[in-house]
């Protein structure tokens, strides 16, 4: 049995290595700025989706406020850079911490609220955050937005400078952080913390009977999941160069949740594919105008109805079928 576990562990590192290779190659394949921009959006959405999945898919806490944490990371880091003159990376850390802290505050409601009630409370939090960004004009310039946000500063190595005004380099940076977040979350869910969070998701009374302090672990799950969203927000600001509250409207929360559901809740790899699919798909559907919303909605409904485990489930089924087919072949070849 321990062999099976170390085999699964090795397979995972191969998967991560493969992902790193794909990340390295993508900007070489997609050379125009339109697609490179989309690549970066994909990487940002991957961060948002896996962060949300940690809270919703693993800890089972229906958080509809991910857009707010995205926005908090973006605005906090940007304001620190533009108003206080903080360098990018310290501002990045502050943005991540601010997101995580607000996530922890929201999770204290999660202790009392469950299911629909938490969903409504977190949605309310997203609405309030949006309204604050919109109406605190002296700080955020409201709907006018903040302009001229610089990308992350170049990284200087002797004889070689990585400049993040170049979209390929910026993609490497964001995708690198997305991969790092993935590895961190993956390590957490494969540790006893993974069992603890799923225990809370499945049955809190039962979890408590095993010594699990659900209140504490919900705060932890929110802190981690929203910290990742805050990091994505910091990169978003430097990437787009402009911040307007509408980027963090509540519909964004539903988009991110759709990525998690289409990808497969409670798996980390699923939401990665979900995020990529739901970022790229609307681009292809741009030609059909508003009809694309119908296609999008239909696709989502079909997934929920026929493949509730999302892409992750589809991939598992395909893999099992392949393995069965190949074992049948070898069995057939022997006699």
């Amino acid at each position, binding site marked *: *049995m*321990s062999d099976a*576990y170390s085999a699964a562990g090795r397979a995972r590192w191969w998967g991560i290595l493969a992902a790193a290779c794909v990340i390295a190659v993508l900007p070489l394949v997609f050379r125009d700025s339109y697609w490179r921009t989309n690549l970066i959006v994909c990487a940002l959405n991957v961060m948002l989706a896996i962060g949300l999945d940690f809270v919703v898919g693993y800890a089972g806490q229906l958080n509809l406020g991910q857009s707010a944490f995205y926005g908090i990371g973006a605005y906090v880091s940007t304001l620190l850079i533009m108003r206080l003159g903080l360098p990018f990376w310290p501002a990045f850390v502050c943005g991540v911490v601010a997101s995580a802290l607000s996530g922890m505050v929201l999770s204290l409601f999660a202790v009392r609220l469950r299911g629909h009630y938490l969903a409504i409370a977190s949605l309310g939090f997203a609405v309030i955050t949006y309204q604050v960004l919109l109406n605190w004009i002296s700080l955020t310039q409201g709907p006018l937005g903040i302009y001229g946000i610089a990308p992350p500063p170049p990284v200087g190595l002797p004889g070689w400078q990585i400049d993040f005004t170049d979209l390929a380099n910026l993609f490497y940076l964001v995708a690198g952080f997305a991969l790092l977040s993935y590895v*961190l979350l993956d*390590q*957490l869910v*494969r*540790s*006893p*913390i993974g*069992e*603890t969070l*799923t*225990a809370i998701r*499945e*049955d809190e*009374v*039962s*979890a*408590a*009977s*095993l*010594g*699990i*302090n*659900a209140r504490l672990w919900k705060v932890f799950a929110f802190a981690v999941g929203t910290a990742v969203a805050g990091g994505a927000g910091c990169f978003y600001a430097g990437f787009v160069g402009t911040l307007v509250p509408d980027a963090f409207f509540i519909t964004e929360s539903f988009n991110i949740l759709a990525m998690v559901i289409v990808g497969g809740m409670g798996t980390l790899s699923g939401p990665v594919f979900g995020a990529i699919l739901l970022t790229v798909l609307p681009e292809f559907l741009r030609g059909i105008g508003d009809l694309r919303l119908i296609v999008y909605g239909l696709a989502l409904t079909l997934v929920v109805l026929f493949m509730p485990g999302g892409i992750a489930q589809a991939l598992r089924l395909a893999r099992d079928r392949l393995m069965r087919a190949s074992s049948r072949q070898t069995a057939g070849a022997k006699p």
Partner: protein
Amino acid sequence: MSDAAAIFRAVGLSKNFGGVRAVKDVSLAVAPATVFAIIGPNGAGKSTLLNLISGVHPPDAGTVMFNSLDVTALPPHARVRHGLARTFQKIRLFKQLSVIDNVVAGFHARHRIPAWQYVWHGTAFRADRARCRAEAAELLAFVGLSGRGQALAGALSYGEQRMLEIARALATAPRLLLIDEPAAGLNAAEVEALLERIRVLRQRGMAVVVVEHNMDLVMNVADRVLVMDYGEPLFEGTPAEVQVHPGVIAAYLGAES
């Protein structure tokens, strides 16, 4: 029983649900390496008493002492660290988790992993994982579920689920195990195996509290029996004493006729 001998002691526990007096002024003391049975007709307040002991409900009155420590104000998860574990009358497994992962979840308070190894799995992490898996496999074997580890908990038969709940509770390394109606839904052979396991636990020094509405079932495993009726303690004594106690007989005949 002398004070020093008891691992667990409840004094004057009461609980009302609206107008229903579910538990009324119940006291009990349980010594290590004994089986303490709580019997009574359905609705007598046995499960409520167990919920008061494990902290699921706060009592309206009374104290719960564990190892001469007052734990009345502690939430359920904190009581586990003092060595208290329980199962549920209505089975509450993690149905989407595998059988072995249900048990491994029970090791929650017993991991020995440095914090940083949660994000970077090192030697201590792997050793802890291996130890938990091995111990979990042992516990599954103990309750007769070896070979079922990879199945989903929800896919087990009713009797198997009951045994898995006991294995999961044992993973917390309790000194006092509370079992609520373990025989419900089990066939005769399964009941016999269960009683046998309870005897083994007692032999290992564990205190076991078994709640049961079927009086005959616990008579040949219990050391002490508390009979409850309408939330009140009716009688406490040895099984032999209980069986001839006129009030108990009346309560049971009244309940069953």
